[in-house]
Each structure stands twice: as structure tokens, then as C-alpha cells.
């Protein structure tokens, strides 16, 4: 069924074409016979000629031949002597030759016309297809966020997408036909000649360009150029695809200047650190020497003049010695304090329980004859500088021992408090002299003391040192206290 259908469809136009040939000859014959009856002379030949030409023109060679043969027969039969026979007299031969020649001519013209027409149609279709394709491409190019424009080899813009409008502020109508480098006032990173040389050599180029927008502001773009060649391989157009990197550029610039500043600060800091180190070194050497001499000679004097000095003079001597010694302690503590900032931390995993044990055995001598109840919890490990953390624990534990001195029964607790996941919070609690929470802010300051020197000795640097060490570990310190009831000191250090 399908097959006969296709056969039918193929045959149908052919039958139709020959039908037209037959019909046109029949109509021509009828018309000629009618005109002959009306006594019109010599019109038969042009009528047949016309019918045949019509057939040849519209239906091609095959039907034209059919029309030619039929016309010849009809003409011969009805209009040439002897009538109603197919006899051909020699005088009629030129007619037939003309007939055939004319038919051939018309057929040939028709064929040429058809071919031209076909070609025209073909190229129209091609053109339409191309237009559709181009339109689609152009609208696709319009969809992209990139800025795309095309310029010919004399830099005149031929295409301008929506991204270009959005970035530069020029519409396609304004831009097309303009010289791209002029309308955009392009600043090239290298000479344009070099860029063009590379473009011609490799077919592409990319780099950063500076353009001026329609509103006069400047924009930095990362631009990629590609060269288009025609079918003869001659360069025909250049497509520029660009992205606005102004913000990126500005950030880079900012980062660069910040970095520069940072480097400067860092250098200054280094110089300051060096000076501080030299200062500390000098203090360590030069400040202690005169102090040592003061103490030394005062003692020698005390010994030598012991018999001639009265009680008051003895007391003065003692005070001189005490003050000098205290100054020595202050210098030592200050140096230790400044060393925390100067020395590089040696970060390792530190077993805090073991560290507490070390500190407690160090304190053993200090607590001889004291009644102290110790409650030591489990602390686990942390990440830090062992010797620095030791200083922290020594300070806090010795403080607890010192400030519970007046208790008949001292209680000191060391344990782990709740804290964040990344930290170990350790507390040291005592039931000693405590402090007024009003002054908690002063507790960790250098040389800040909340007790009178005659009640509890000290330089006021211990807790400042503790705070400095913990801050260097990225941790925090805090304290809670009630006067005459005790104090609790907390510090946090990172977990391993």
C-alpha cells in the first residue's frame, strides 16, 4: 500500500504533465477548427505553435515532444491538403522544420529558465537558512554575559552584542561602523602592532585592556581576540570577547597595597622587636650590675660598720638591701615577661596532667608545714609551648599557695572546666584571700597588685605573664573572686 502510494505520487506529476500537453493540443485543435469555421485564414499554425510553446515552457521537454507530435498530426490531418489524410507534401516540410526548431528553442529557453529559477530558489533557501542560523547565533551571543563585538580588518565594528551595550553603554546602532579602538579609547598592554602580529600568526590573542565607557569611566577587561578568515584564508574579521575585571583589578590593587603596607609594618615591627631585644639585653646586663654592687657593698658596709651603727642605721641598711633586692626581682620578672613576646613558641602536644605534677613537686618545698588539701582533676593534653605553659601553671599554683597562707586549712583545686570543642579550659581554685570583682580588670595588668606588699609579696607581673602566654596560644584568661573566700583562675588553650 505504502509502496503503491509512493509510486502513485511519483507517477502523478508525470501523467499530469503529459495530460497538459494532450489537453493544450486538443484545445488548440478545437480553437483552430472553430476559427476555420468562422472563415479565419492562416491562424492554425500560430495556435498550435502557441499551444506547443506553452507546453514546452511550463512542462518541459517530454510533454513538449508529445505536444509537437500531436500538433503535427492534427495540423497535417485537419489543415493541410489533402485534408483528412496524414500525407505530407514536400511544400509542407519547411513548416514542420520550423515547428520542430521553434519547439526546440522554446524548450531550451524553458530549460534554462528552470535551471536559473531552481538555482535562485536554492540560493534563496540557503540564504534563508543562513539568516536563521545567524539570527540564532546572534541571539545566543546576546544571551551571554560576555561582551562580544566583531570588527572588520579596518577595525570598523560590524557586530555588537547586548553584553557590549551593558558594559560600555554604547548601543549597537551607535557602535556599528565606528572604529573600535577609537570609540572605546583602548589602552593596550603592549604595542598594537605586536598584538596584531600575534593575532595573524596564531589566530588569537588575549590580554588585559583598558576601555572607556560611554559615560567616560574606565573599565579593565580580560579580552580574548580571535581572527576569522574567509574561504580564501584571508583575514576577514576579528571577534573580541571580554570580561569586566575592574572589580577584580581593584581588589588586586588593594591587596597589593595592603600587602605593601603589611610588609612595611612587619619590617617596622621587626626593627622594634630588635630594639626591644637590645633593650632587654642591655637591661639584663647593665641594670643588674649596679644593683649587685649596691647590695654587695651595702652588705660589706653593714658587716664592717656593724659595731658603730645604731638600731636606726641598721634598719636603714636593711631597707636599702631589701629595696635593691626587690628591684632585682622586678628586673628579672620584667625580663621574663618581655621574653615571652620575644621568644618563638615551640608548639607541641603537652600533657597537662604531667605538667601539673611537675609543678606540684616543684612547690613541695614551698608548702612544707602547711595544711593544704589538694584536689587534682584530669586535664588531658593540649597544644602549646611546654615551658611557657609551665610558667602559667607555676604562677597560678604558687599564687594559690601564697594567697591561702593565712588559712588554717587551705584548699586548692586544679581541674578542667567546660569549654569549646577546640579548647581545654583549666581552672585553679583556692579558698584564700580572694579579691574584689570590682578590680578584676586590673588583675592581669603589669605591676597591678590588689594586695598590700606587706600582706603578700610579689612584683605584680605573674598574672600579666600568664595572660601574655595564654594570649600567645590564642586562648583566654579570666578570674572570679570573693574577698576572703577565695579565687578561681581559668585559662583556655587549644586542643592538640
Amino acid at each position, binding site marked *: 500500500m505504502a509502496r503503491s502510494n509512493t509510486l502513485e505520487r511519483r507517477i502523478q506529476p508525470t501523467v499530469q504533465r503529459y495530460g497538459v500537453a494532450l489537453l493544450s493540443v486538443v484545445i488548440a485543435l478545437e480553437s483552430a477548427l472553430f476559427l476555420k469555421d468562422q472563415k479565419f485564414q492562416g491562424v492554425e499554425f500560430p495556435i498550435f505553435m502557441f499551444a506547443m510553446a506553452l507546453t514546452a515552457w511550463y512542462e518541459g521537454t517530454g510533454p513538449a515532444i508529445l505536444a509537437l507530435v500531436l500538433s503535427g498530426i492534427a495540423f497535417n490531418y485537419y489543415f493541410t491538403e489533402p485534408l483528412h489524410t496524414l500525407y505530407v507534401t514536400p511544400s509542407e516540410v519547411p513548416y514542420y522544420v520550423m515547428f520542430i526548431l521553434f519547439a526546440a528553442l522554446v524548450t531550451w529557453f524553458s530549460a534554462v529558465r528552470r535551471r536559473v529559477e531552481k538555482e535562485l530558489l536554492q540560493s534563496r533557501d540557503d540564504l534563508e537558512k543562513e539568516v536563521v542560523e545567524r539570527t540564532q547565533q546572534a541571539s545566543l551571543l546576546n544571551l551571554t554575559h560576555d561582551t562580544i563585538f566583531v570588527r572588520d580588518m579596518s577595525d570598523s565594528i560590524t557586530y555588537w552584542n547586548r553584553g557590549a551595550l551593558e558594559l560600555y553603554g554604547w548601543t549597537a546602532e551607535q557602535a556599528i561602523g565606528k572604529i573600535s579602538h577609537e570609540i572605546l579609547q583602548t589602552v593596550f598592554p603592549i604595542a598594537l602592532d605586536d598584538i596584531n602580529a600575534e593575532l595573524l600568526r596564531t589566530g588569537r590573542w588575549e590580554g588585559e585592556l583598558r576601555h572607556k565607557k560611554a559615560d567616560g569611566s574606565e573599565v579593565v577587561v580580560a579580552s580574548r581576540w580571535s581572527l576569522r578568515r574567509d574561504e580564501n584564508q584571508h583575514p576577514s574579521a576579528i571577534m573580541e570577547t571580554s570580561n569586566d575585571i575592574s572589580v577584580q583589578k581593584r581588589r588586586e590593587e588593594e591587596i597589593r597595597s595592603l600587602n605593601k603596607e603589611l610588609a612595611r609594618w612587619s619590617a617596622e615591627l621587626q626593627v622594634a622587636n630588635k630594639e626591644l631585644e637590645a633593650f632587654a639585653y642591655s637591661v639584663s646586663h647593665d641594670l643588674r650590675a649596679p644593683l649587685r654592687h649596691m647590695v654587695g657593698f651595702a652588705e660589706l658596709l653593714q658587716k664592717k660598720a656593724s659595731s658603730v651603727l645604731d638600731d636606726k642605721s641598721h634598719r636603714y641598711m636593711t631597707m636599702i638591701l631589701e629595696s635593691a633586692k626587690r628591684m632585682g626581682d622586678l628586673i628579672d620578672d620584667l*625580663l621574663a615577661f618581655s621574653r615571652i613576646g620575644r621568644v618563638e613558641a615551640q608548639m607541641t602536644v603537652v600533657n597537662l596532667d604531667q605538667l601539673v605534677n611537675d609543678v606540684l613537686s616543684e612547690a613541695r618545698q614551698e608548702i612544707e608545714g602547711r595544711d593544704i588539701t589538694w584536689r587534682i582533676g584530669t586535664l588531658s593534653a593540649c597544644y602549646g609551648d611546654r615551658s611557657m605553659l609551665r610558667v602559667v601553671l607555676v604562677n597560678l599554683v604558687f599564687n594559690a599557695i601564697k594567697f591561702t597562707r593565712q588559712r588554717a586549712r587551705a584548699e586548692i583545686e586544679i581541674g578542667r572546666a567546660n569549654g569549646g570543642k577546640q579548647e581545654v579550659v583549666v581552672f585553679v581554685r583556692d579558698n584564700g584571700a580572694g579579691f574584689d570583682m570590682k578590680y578584676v580588670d586590673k588583675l592581669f595588668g603589669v605591676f597591678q597588685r590588689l594586695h598590700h606588699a606587706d600582706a603578700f609579696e610579689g612584683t605584680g607581673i605573674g598574672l600579666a605573664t600568664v595572660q601574655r602566654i595564654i594570649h600567645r596560644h590564642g586562648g583566654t584568661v579570666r578570674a572570679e573572686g570573693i574577698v576572703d573566700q577565695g579565687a578561681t583562675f581559668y585559662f583556655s588553650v587549644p586542643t592538640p
Partner: protein
Amino acid sequence: MEKLGRILMVEDDPKDVELTMTALEEYNLANEVIVTRDGEEALDYLYCRGNYASRSSDNPAVMLLDLKLPKVDGLEVLRQVKSDETLRMIPVVVLTSSHEEKDVVASYKLGVNAYVVKPVDFHEFVNAIKELGVFWAVINAAPPGSVRK
């Protein structure tokens, strides 16, 4: 009384010299102390040159060396002594005000025999000097080449 070795003290501060001498006297250790006031003089003494060209060429039993010295500093003296075949056997005790770790480390790296920080407290100072003097000048077996009286 023990026999005493000769002590070479390198110290620029006369007050420190006096205090040290007093401390040594207190324990009768000051019999023979040679005081040089800077690193150059100390090296002159050790190499028997300059003012010390005519001294007998024996080495001291111990050298008490300050670090902060005019001209040639203590660490340099230490370096030269410890890199010299004939001098390296002399026990060198750095006796200084400096607690600084870098001084301690540098001294031990150069091969110092002891590093003592001068205490501010006079009693402690005297004790330190006494222990040093007794240990290095009396108890310690002096290296060959140093003469005992």
C-alpha cells in the same frame, strides 16, 4: 688548706672585681688571681704577649670570664680559647649578669665548662664565687700545663 691554682679573671667592672675578690678572700681563695680588664688583655695574658710577654707560660687553673667586655667580648675570647690546642684545656667559667638564653646557648656551643649568672644578692654571689673557686681552683684536677703552688 688546699693548694690553689691560679685564677684568671676577665672583668671590666672594677666594682665587680672588688666584690669578686672580697668573696674569694672570704674563703681564702684569692691567693693568686690575675685580673684582666678586657678580652684583648685576657688573650695577651693567655698567649704571653704584650704586657704579659715575660710571664711564665703556664696556663691558669681556671678562667672566670665576663661576657660584656670592651674591645674583644667574652664570647670571642671563649671561641679563641676553645679553638686553640694549647688553651682549650683551661676550664672556662662564664660569670655574667646575663640571664639571656642566647648567651647561655652560645656559650655552651663554644664549649664553656660552666655558666654562672651573678646573683644580685651578695650572699648568693659570695656563695657562687666560693663554689666556683673551690671547685675549679682546688678540687678539680687541673689540666696538664697549669701549675699549682
